[in-house]
């Protein structure tokens, strides 16, 4: 479990960061080429968008893992230990349901004939390929939310800050 966890974490971090970094480079390159050489990379906008969408849906898995998704925390301040735990279980359960539903329909979406047939306008990539980030992200989120549910039901800390806590400076502050 912890081994799988480490591998998944490494993949998620790398993918989200590479996509963000790549998109930044591409967008800058486009501006520079346009101004210096009057040259337009016709697929750069599309590629930037798809890279950042990838970064978003994979990054959302990492934020879920660290329980950083923003929520309205009014009720839990009113409750004591037990009530808080129940609330944590409830919110984890709702997240599991969300990921299960959206994950399922995301997989259905990319296997529909439209997604298999249509190519994106500039990159000429099949639609299912660029849309793949959504079902993959949601599936990983589903796994993470199950883990969260398990942890909260067992009354464990839902903020696992372990081996990759060094990455967490920003959002953890």
């Amino acid at each position: 479990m912890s081994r799988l966890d480490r591998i998944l974490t490494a993949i998620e971090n790398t993918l989200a960061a590479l996509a963000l970094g790549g998109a930044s480079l591409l967008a800058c390159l486009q501006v520079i080429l346009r101004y210096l050489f009057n040259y337009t990379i016709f697929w750069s906008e599309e590629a930037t968008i798809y890279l950042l969408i990838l970064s978003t849906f994979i990054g959302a898995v990492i934020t879920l893992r660290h329980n950083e998704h923003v929520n309205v925390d009014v009720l839990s301040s009113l409750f004591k230990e037990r009530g808080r735990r129940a609330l944590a279980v409830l919110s984890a359960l709702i997240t599991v349901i969300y990921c299960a539903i959206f994950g399922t329909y995301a997989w259905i979406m990319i296997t529909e004939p439209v997604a298999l047939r249509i190519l994106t306008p500039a990159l000429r990539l099949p639609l299912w390929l660029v849309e793949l980030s959504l079902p993959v992200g949601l599936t990983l989120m589903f796994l993470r939310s199950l883990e969260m549910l398990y942890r909260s039901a067992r009354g464990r800390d839902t903020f696992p800050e372990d081996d990759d806590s060094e990455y967490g400076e920003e959002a953890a502050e």
Partner: protein
Amino acid sequence: MSPTLVLFVVFFLLLLSTAPISVALGLTAFLYFFYYTTLPLTQTTDTLFNSLNTFTLMAIPFFVFAANIMTHGGISRRLTEAANAAVGRFPGGLALTAVISCMFFAAISGSSPATVVAVGTLLIPAMIEAGYGRMFSTGIVATSGSLGILIPPSIPLIVYGIATETSIGDLFIAGFGPGLLAGFLLIGLVLFTAWRRGLRGQEIPLTRAQRIKAFRDAFLGLLLPIFVLGGIYGGVFTPTEAAAMAVLYSLIVSLFVYREMTLKDLARVTVASARMSAMIMFIIANAILFSFVLTSERIPDQITNLFINLDLSWFTFLLVVNAFLLLVGCFMETSSAILILAPIFLPVATRLGVNPIHFGIIMVMNLEIGMVTPPFGLNLFVASGISKLSVVRVAKASAPSALVLLAALLVVTYVPDISLFLVEGGA
């Protein structure tokens, strides 16, 4: 029960369950598709994906990334030092430095919590050490940080521009006047507090040479807003490209000029930025799905009709909207509130002759105040993390400065020229 009512009750219950906002928005929208429409359910995931399929929206990850690089690459520290060199010797000098640093940093980052982190980690401990009191020090930074979403570039203004199809360049320019007004009022508050409590400035004033050096060091950071905003308004690049160039610019300055960032730091900052921006973008995607539902329920039309029947003047309308938005700002996250509410209120506003750009500034200022009011003020959480005060006490500490922002809001609401004097064809 009408579908609308069911929707809002479900949404509210999901929010109360402490589920993530994004999940609450998305799940409510799904239930609507499931019970009230015959649309294929893959339409939900399709909308979720395509809600992000806009180049303009991509300015957000870039601005988040740029702000993180500036915080870790020494740019924000130098900006703070320059601010200190300018105002540090006056009474309450460090608090003045905090307000002005927030204004500087707001002008290069688009986010309000990022501003609190950048300025707060440096100045809150320094202020406490100088005897300014933990409460006052934390409160002033939490509030000044909220200027981050008013002084351009600003993520909420980008979101408003997308939701209402208004020019983001114009919105940015319109944010300046109100941002400066709010900033100066906060400076006034600091001076007043310093006078009443006898807060000191620097013990030994900096020499002229030291001050010149501080400004020269911060020069590259101070140049960035001119580069970014000048570029957008001069038509050199789009807001998204400007944000990407801000990443490149701050990267070059941090890696090669200041040399305060190693490639290893960069890898960490990139992961942290991807996480932060994913959090915002995932909420936005779900909020767009939710607002799609509201539009198909024709809720904006219903609200417009309601207001037309009430026959309000623009004066009372803006008062009502302000009160409502302040309330909403206390409970909702900024971007989703804009995506859901802007399309609902803007049609009424334009009918009553309110300029759409001006209305955007009013909305963002309201939600900005919401960032420092409980229970959902993001700045309160961030500031409490830095100063180790409880969120409730940070909220109490921020109350006076939040009132100052409220005063600024009233002035900005009823004097449109403060926002529009720089906008072409406005005023």
